[in-house]
């Protein structure tokens, strides 16, 4: 706590000092998040994290000096001009996402756009940015096709489907349940872009590695009842059940499985819903030992992740989850590129983004770095596996970086 509070207490004074130094108008960066609608919980966490990022950039943070823009005030390469965030609510609606992207670009005159959250909305909003020639950096949408569209202004920092599938399959090949190999795998996925694309890529990667997917159960997101799906699982008795769900469904599955007394030996809950603090607080007690992927491990004291998480917790009262961390990292990469561009001209920022070469220690998340390929996809994104203990996720895989021992089988409510 002493680490986290000091910069916060010093903030007002430094902000004042920063103002005195900062020359010229603030530089505006826009962000689109679902602040209302079904994904509002994740969107508002993202918003809190981005607001934290703005504060960190606009005030000197000697504690985080290894990260770009943290030791200084505002954008030092652009005369110390401060950063201003323009937040917009995309309401989970593709047309609204476009309207808001257009408003941020033409009315607010943002120099870059970030966010989008749901893959479908990132898709429509980034099409507007592409037509207007404004850089769009996304940190959280994983649908593979987003970087396959031939866009010149679209960049993405998050690891995507193939990276995620690779670590699950690697883990499954190494894992043994009660001494027997993992042979029967079931996937339960919500049927929008996120669930469908992740399920497909896991299936392909697993089958290429010789692990057959015995059962796949797609279901409609925001279901009112999932007992049919759980019964299907109970019948099939897979060694591993992989869930790909948003928050409300993840909670519903945990409760339904508790009600029906069903526990697979290994339960993997893919990020999104299972990472949401809402899930951990409401259903965590009956989903003990669920394995999740994450790029964010705040448990190592002294790391950037640890410090940023402490600041976030002081602000919001809860730990930062993986999705929120990826959103924040995407935003920070954008700001770093603007500073390196040394100008607010979109083309200069685009060039700087293409030249991005951030090392692992310059990030607040566990990627190996940030470097974009020709399509705008980060090639150094990486993922680790975490397991739920009490109301916290601890890192368990790969073993070299793990901070805790993997515990199998899945315990659920016991």
């Amino acid at each position: 706590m002493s680490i986290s509070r000091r910069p916060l207490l010093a903030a007002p004074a430094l902000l004042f000092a920063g103002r005195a130094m900062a020359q010229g108008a603030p530089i505006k960066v826009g962000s689109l998040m679902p602040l209302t609608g079904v994904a509002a919980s994740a969107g508002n966490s993202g918003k809190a994290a981005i607001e934290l990022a703005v504060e960190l950039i606009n005030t000197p943070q000697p504690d985080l000096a290894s990260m770009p823009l943290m030791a200084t005030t505002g954008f030092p390469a652009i005369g110390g001009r401060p950063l201003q965030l323009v937040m917009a609510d995309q309401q989970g609606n593709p047309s609204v996402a476009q309207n808001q992207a257009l408003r941020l670009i033409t009315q607010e005159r943002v120099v870059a756009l970030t966010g989008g959250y749901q893959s479908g909305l990132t898709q429509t909003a980034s099409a507007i940015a592409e037509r207007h020639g404004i850089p769009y950096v996304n940190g959280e949408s994983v649908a593979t096709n987003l970087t396959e569209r031939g866009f010149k202004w679209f960049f993405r920092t998050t690891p995507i489907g193939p990276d995620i599938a690779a670590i699950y399959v690697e883990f499954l090949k190494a894992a043994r349940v009660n001494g027997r190999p993992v042979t029967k795998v079931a996937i339960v996925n919500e049927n929008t872009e996120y669930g469908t694309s992740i399920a497909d890529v896991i299936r392909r990667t697993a089958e290429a590695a010789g692990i057959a997917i015995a059962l796949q159960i797609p279901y409609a997101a925001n279901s009112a009842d999932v007992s049919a799906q759980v019964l299907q699982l109970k019948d099939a008795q897979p060694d591993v059940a992989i869930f790909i769900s948003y928050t409300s469904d993840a909670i519903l599955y945990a409760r339904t499985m508790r009600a029906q007394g069903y526990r697979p030996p290994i339960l993997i809950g893919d990020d999104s819903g299972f990472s949401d603090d809402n899930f951990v607080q409401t259903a965590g007690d009956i989903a003990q030992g669920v394995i999740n992927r994450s790029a964010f491990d705040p448990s190592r004291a002294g790391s950037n992740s640890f410090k940023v998480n402490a600041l976030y917790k002081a602000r919001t009262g809860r730990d930062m989850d993986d999705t929120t961390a990826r959103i924040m990292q995407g935003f920070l990469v954008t700001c770093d590129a603007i500073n390196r561009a040394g100008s607010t001209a979109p083309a200069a920022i685009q060039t700087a983004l293409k030249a991005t070469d951030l090392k692992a220690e310059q990030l607040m998340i566990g990627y190996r770095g940030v470097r974009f390929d020709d399509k705008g996809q980060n090639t150094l994104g990486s993922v680790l596996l975490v397991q739920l203990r009490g109301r916290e996720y601890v890192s368990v895989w790969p073993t070299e970086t793990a901070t805790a021992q993997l515990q199998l089988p899945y315990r659920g409510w016991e």
Partner: protein
Amino acid sequence: MSAQATQTPAAPRLAGRLIFGALALIALLVWPLLVENVFYQRVGALVMLAALSASAWNLVGGYAGQISIGHVLYFGCGAYASLLGFTWFEWAPILGAPFGIALSLLLAVIVGTPTLRLKGHYFSMATIALAELARIIVTNSPVLGGGVGVSGPALPRSMADLSFISPLPYYYIFGAVLAVLLAFTWWMNLGRMGFYLRAIRGQERAARSLGVPAQCYKLYALLVSAGFTSLTGSLYATMVGFVDPDSGFGILLSVKMVIAAALGGAGTLFGPLVGAAILVPLEEVTNAMFGGDGTGITYVVYGAIIVFISRFAPGGLAEVLSRFQAWRARRAN
């Protein structure tokens, strides 16, 4: 409207109306060129789109008095036909529109024949059920894009894709279609069909006993309405370039059509346009002003409007206007 005819002599009143109409038309045509702000131009295009779907709804919901809350069924058909045409055959999205319209007409016959026999709330509920059914079927059909949705061309390939950077072309295209629809509505209202529909709305049993083929004419109105709603869906898909089950078949869209028409005045020619011209900017402005806080106040405002209309002016602004005119006339006397 006819009540006012007693107040002023017919000829000057008609001239006044014509001048007012011409000025309004010129204003509608010219204002986007004077406003340089691209965002306002886009809001203008969205107003036209909302006015188009609300005017199409108005044929059934306003003139024929059959309150459908499932019109999104036809909207979705149009939107999906456009983008599926692109996904499957790489067509320009607008080429899918005729297929969407054809499917919508077919659905209107299948849906309308049994449901138009229902009265009042039962008809409304049946339309909601059918639209929800369509949404669930599409959500669970991978070949129709499932829950993921379908996209248009990521980057425009040719002019035929109707993919513009500026919202202005959309504004004028939507406006032109709206003009056709309003002209049809006006013509229909003057003719036999207009009389029949008014009779049906007033008292269907009485109309039937006088020999009005009610079932038939309600279906005609539904067919035209479904066709134009489907075209609106295709135009929406062409502009946005993406549709998923919620944005194509979500009940909120049906409700917005009803509210826009009801706010301006259901069963009047320009009511839906007026309603859309108030609601869409209101929605965009509240979202721009308060949306960033994540407080959802946009929806609070929207909800308040619904409550106010249904409590104080079920006939919409048209009713408020005629009440005001009546009040002025009383004062003048």
